[in-house]
């Protein structure tokens, strides 16, 4: 992996770290020298990930965090500060992407999607902010679905759309000390999109509609997040960056 930034002495808190994008982000930030607090609903998977990246667990701290629970967010932020002193970067990567048509969607399905995809972002940011150092950066992972909608994912798309406006509002609140931006992945290779690809003739149609003619890779999201957290993006706040190979071209 080519890393272009030096994050040594700085600390990342990332939720949903076990997902393919979360993992790529943790790997990249670790390789750039950052301390990484990797949280996930699945504690044993978070621990396995941490040991993969850093067998001695010298710079990686795995934690259990249900994004939907405010107390879990507070606990994660506190543990991060106890271990590494402060938080510099927050990446909210925890997400839940399930298929359901609105006409058939249960209250519980709707609620769970909003809980994880939207409330979880609020809880994690709120818990981390008091512990963030000046010059820090928050990157919320939104989605192409938050811009253009998504068939059979209204709950997910609604939450992701809200994450975009939440991020802009938070950028106003935390400027000029902390920058806040969002990244909207398109179709990124990993378990999350497998169902979608199967529903679309193995993905051939979707890839055909993508100008770059392929799926994205998780490390291609991680590299954009690393850029946004770096001083190279020092004048960028309140933006949302699409990483979708051109599949969705709009403002």
């Amino acid at each position, binding site marked *: 992996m*080519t890393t*272009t930034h030096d994050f040594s002495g700085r600390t990342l808190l990332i939720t949903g770290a076990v997902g393919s994008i979360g993992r790529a982000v943790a790997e990249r930030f670790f390789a750039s020298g950052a301390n990484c607090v990797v949280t996930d609903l699945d504690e044993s998977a978070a621990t396995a990930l941490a040991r993969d990246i850093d067998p001695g667990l010298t710079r990686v701290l795995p934690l259990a965090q249900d994004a939907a629970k405010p107390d879990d967010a507070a606990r994660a932020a506190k543990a991060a500060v106890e271990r590494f002193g402060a938080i510099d970067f927050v990446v909210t990567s925890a997400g839940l992407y399930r298929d359901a048509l609105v006409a058939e969607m249960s209250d519980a399905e709707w609620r769970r999607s909003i809980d994880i995809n939207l409330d979880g972002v609020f809880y994690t940011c709120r818990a981390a902010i008091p512990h963030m150092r000046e010059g820090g950066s928050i990157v919320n992972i939104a989605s192409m679905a938050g811009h253009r909608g998504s068939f059979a994912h209204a709950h997910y798309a609604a939450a992701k759309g809200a994450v975009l406006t939440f991020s*802009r509002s938070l*950028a*106003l609140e935390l*400027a*000029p000390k902390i*920058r806040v931006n969002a990244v909207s992945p*398109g179709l990124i290779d990993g378990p999350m999109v497998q169902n979608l690809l199967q529903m679309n003739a193995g993905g051939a149609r979707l890839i055909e509609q*993508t*100008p*770059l*003619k392929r799926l*994205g*890779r998780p490390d*291609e*999201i991680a*590299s*954009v997040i*690393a*850029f946004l957290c770096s*001083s*190279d*993006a*020092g*004048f*960028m*706040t*309140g*933006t949302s*960056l*699409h*990483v*979708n*190979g*051109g599949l969705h*071209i*709009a*403002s």
Partner: protein
Amino acid sequence: MSTHTGRVALVTGSGRGIGRAIADAHGAAGAAVVYLDHDPALAEAAAAEAAAKGRKALGLAADVADYASVAAACEKAAATLGPIDVLINNAGISPKSGSDGKRAPMWEMSPSEWQRVLDVNLTGAFNCTRAVVPGMRELGRGRIVSTSSVAGKTFCDIVGVHYAATKAGLIGFTKHLAGELGPFGITVNAVAPGRIDTPLMRGTASAANDAVKAITPLRRFGTAEDVAETCLFLTSDAASFVTAQVIDVAGGWLMT
């Protein structure tokens, strides 16, 4: 940092300001750089400074509004440094011919001023892109970044209507070309700077600039380097799946 070793980058309007910073950043990252500017002295001085730092650099004069002039420069650049795989369409003008360094209001704007801004800012990007894309298609890779502006996305009470129209035009240019050129491994993006401290910005009345700074969340003007680093990101491998995007480098101003 050598993220761009082996790349050949042509940056238009790189004699000074944002273009100069973009070109310098590519040189520092290992690329061979073509400094293309309307003003031969500026182009040559910029290239000479880069060469003095041990970088591969070539200074060329061309008027981007003139296709023959651009085509000749691109041909010379490729013959000297190798095929161009990074193009930055940055050359731009923003006349402030009104009173007190303000824009001319639309109802007083001369048709010739309108036409010149269109020719440089928009047709210039077409001319340069037209000249380099055949080579990029042959290479099977390429990176094109154009300097748009937040003024191309929303009303900015500083610039003239000609400037806003061309900067919006570059956004359509970018999005359309991303679709056409993606299948050849070429990404096409734009940056949309806010108020950036450059000679061009200093041509505006300072009270107007200060008013923008006061409502910019990061409470400062941007630097040419702020924009340059974003361009460098877009032309690097880190942005390999990023295409058709227009990225604000505006400190949160307007959040367009």
